[in-house]
C-alpha cells in the first residue's frame, strides 16, 4: 500500500496487467502462431515452416466460391436483419415508455436458448412437412416438391435470426439517445413526419446502424453452423471449409491461411464500409461508446 502510494502512476498499469496479459498470451500470441502455421508446408502431423506464400494463393484459388458465398449470405442476412430490427428498435425506443427495459429483455430472451438448439428449431420450422413449406406450396410460391431446407434461403434465414440481437441492441442504444426535442423541433419547423425522420432521426441513428451491421456481418461471414445444419455442401461457407480443414482433413497450413484471408477480407470490407458511411461518424462512435 505504501509502495503504491509513492508510485501512484503505477496503479493503472497494475490494474491492467493480469487481464491484458491474458489477452496478449491467449489472443495476440495465438494469432502469431496462426500466421506461422499459414506459412508452413507438410502433412499431418509434421509441418515445417518455409515461408510458403503459395498457401494463400491456393486458399483463394481453391475456395473463392465459398468466400464469395460467405460474403453474399452474410450481406443478405445483415440487410434483412437491419430491415427487421430498425422498426423494432425504433418502436422500443420511442413507444416503449416505462417498459423499455422489459421489451428489450423480450428481444434478447430468445437468445438464451443455446445457439445450436435454436438452429435445430429452425430445422423443424422449415422442414418439408412443416407449416411454412406447406403454406408456400399451397400458395404456389414453392412447387409441389419445392423445399426450404437444404437451400440458401434456409441458411440465410438461420443466419439472420441467430445474429439479430447484435443488430437490435446497437440500434436501440443509438435511437434511445436521440433527444426527442430535436424531432419535435423539426416538426415545429414544418418538416413532415417522414422528412423529420429522414433528416433528423435516421442520421442520428447511423452510428447504431454502423455498429449493428458490423456486429452482424462479421460473425455471420465466419459462421458454419447454419450452413451445416440448414444447408448442404452446396451451401457451405468459408467457415465450413476452415472447420473441416482444421478438424477433419487436418491440413493446418491451409486452414490457417484461409483464416487469415477471411480476417483480411473482413478488415478491408469494414474499412471500405467505414469510408462510405463517413469517417467522422465512425470515429465519433468509437469515442462515444
Amino acid at each position, binding site marked *: 500500500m505504501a509502495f503504491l502510494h509513492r508510485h501512484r502512476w503505477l496503479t*493503472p498499469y497494475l490494474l491492467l496487467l493480469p*487481464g491484458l496479459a491474458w489477452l496478449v498470451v491467449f489472443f495476440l500470441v495465438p494469432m502469431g502462431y496462426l500466421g506461422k502455421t499459414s506459412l508452413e508446408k507438410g502433412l499431418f502431423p509434421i509441418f515445417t515452416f518455409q515461408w510458403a506464400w503459395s498457401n494463400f494463393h491456393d486458399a483463394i484459388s481453391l475456395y473463392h466460391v465459398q468466400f464469395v458465398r460467405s460474403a453474399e449470405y452474410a450481406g443478405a442476412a445483415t440487410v434483412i436483419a437491419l430491415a427487421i430490427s430498425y422498426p423494432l428498435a425504433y418502436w422500443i425506443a420511442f413507444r416503449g415508455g416505462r417498459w423499455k427495459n*422489459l421489451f428489450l429483455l423480450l428481444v434478447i430472451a*430468445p437468445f438464451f436458448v*443455446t445457439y445450436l438448439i435454436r438452429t435445430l428449431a429452425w430445422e423443424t*420450422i422449415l422442414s418439408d412437412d412443416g407449416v411454412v413449406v406447406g403454406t408456400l406450396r399451397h400458395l404456389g410460391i414453392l412447387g409441389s416438391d419445392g423445399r426450404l431446407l437444404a437451400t440458401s434461403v434456409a441458411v440465410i434465414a438461420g443466419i439472420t435470426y441467430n445474429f439479430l440481437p447484435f443488430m437490435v441492441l446497437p440500434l436501440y442504444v443509438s435511437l434511445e439517445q436521440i433527444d426527442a426535442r430535436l424531432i419535435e423541433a423539426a416538426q415545429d419547423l414544418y418538416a413532415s413526419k417522414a422528412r423529420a425522420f429522414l433528416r433528423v432521426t435516421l442520421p442520428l441513428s447511423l452510428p447504431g446502424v454502423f455498429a449493428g451491421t*458490423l456486429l452482424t456481418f*462479421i460473425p455471420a461471414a465466419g459462421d458454419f453452423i447454419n450452413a451445416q445444419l440448414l444447408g448442404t455442401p452446396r451451401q457451405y461457407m468459408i467457415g465450413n471449409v476452415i472447420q473441416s480443414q482444421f478438424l477433419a482433413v487436418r491440413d493446418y497450413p491451409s486452414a*490457417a491461411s484461409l483464416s487469415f484471408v477471411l480476417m483480411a477480407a473482413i478488415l478491408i470490407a469494414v474499412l471500405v464500409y467505414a469510408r462510405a458511411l463517413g469517417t467522422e461518424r465512425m470515429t465519433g462512435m468509437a469515442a462515444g461508446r
Partner: protein
Amino acid sequence: MTSAAATVAARPRGRAGWRALAFVRRNLLNVYALLALGYLFLPIAIVIAFSFNNPAGRFNYTWQGFTFKNWTSPFGFPGLRDSVVLSIEIALLSSLVATALGTLIALALVRYGFRGRGLVNLLIFVPMATPEIVMGASLLALFVSWHYAQGFMTILIAHIMFNISYVVVTVKARLVGFDRHLEEAAMDLGANEWTTFQKVTLPLIMPGILAGGLLAFALSVDDFVITYFNAGPKTTFPLFVWGAARVAVPPQINVIGTLIFVVAVGGMLVNVLFQNRRARSAA
C-alpha cells in the same frame, strides 16, 4: 398569391390526411413490432413444445405425441448430464476470472490517465470484432505448437479470453456515470483509499460487475465454435447438441435448453422489474 390561397385551402384536408396517415403509421409500427417479437419467439415456442414431444425415431423433428417423460428424466440420455455439468463448471470459473480481470481493466480505463490507453482500448475491442472461428483456430494453432493437450484447461483458457472484453465494456458503461464526489466525501471523512474502495466504490459499481459476470456466464454456456476447436476429448452441452444433431436428437436436449432459457430470462426479469421499482420509488 394564388399559391398561398391554395395552401390555405389545402391545409385542413392535408392535416386530416396527415392525421389518418399518422394513425395508420402508428399502428403499422405496433403491428410490425408485434410480428417481429412473434418471429423472435417462434423457434423458442418450438423448442419448448418439442420438449414435451414423444418422438418415434431417433430424431425430434416431427410432433408425435404429448408426454412428460422427458421432463421427469432430463438426463435420461448417456453423456448428457456430464456435458451439462462441464458447461456449468466452465461457465462459473471463466465468468468469475473474466469478471475479476475485466473489472480491473475497466477501473484503470475509466479512473486513470495513462499512456497507451488507445492501444488498450484496441486490444479490448479486437477480440469482439474477430470471427469466432479465427479465434478458435488460432488458439488451436497455439496449443498444437506448444504440444499442450486439449481438455478442461484449454476450454477454460479460451472462455476467459473471449469473456474479458465483454466484461470490460459492461463494467465501463457503469463506471462512466459514476459520481466521484462520493469517494471524495468518504476520503474527506477520513477513510483511506482501500476503505473507500470497499465501502463506497465497490457497492456502487456492483450492479455493473454483476451484469458483466452474468453476460460472461451466458456467453460461456452458449459458446460452440471456440470450444469446438479447443475441447479435445471433452464435451460441453453445445458440443453434445452438435454431436446429437448428426446421430440422434433426444428431446432431453429441449428440456435442458428450456431450463437454461427459463433460469436466465427469469433472473433478468427479476432484475428489470426490481430496477423499474427502484427508479419509480426514487422519482
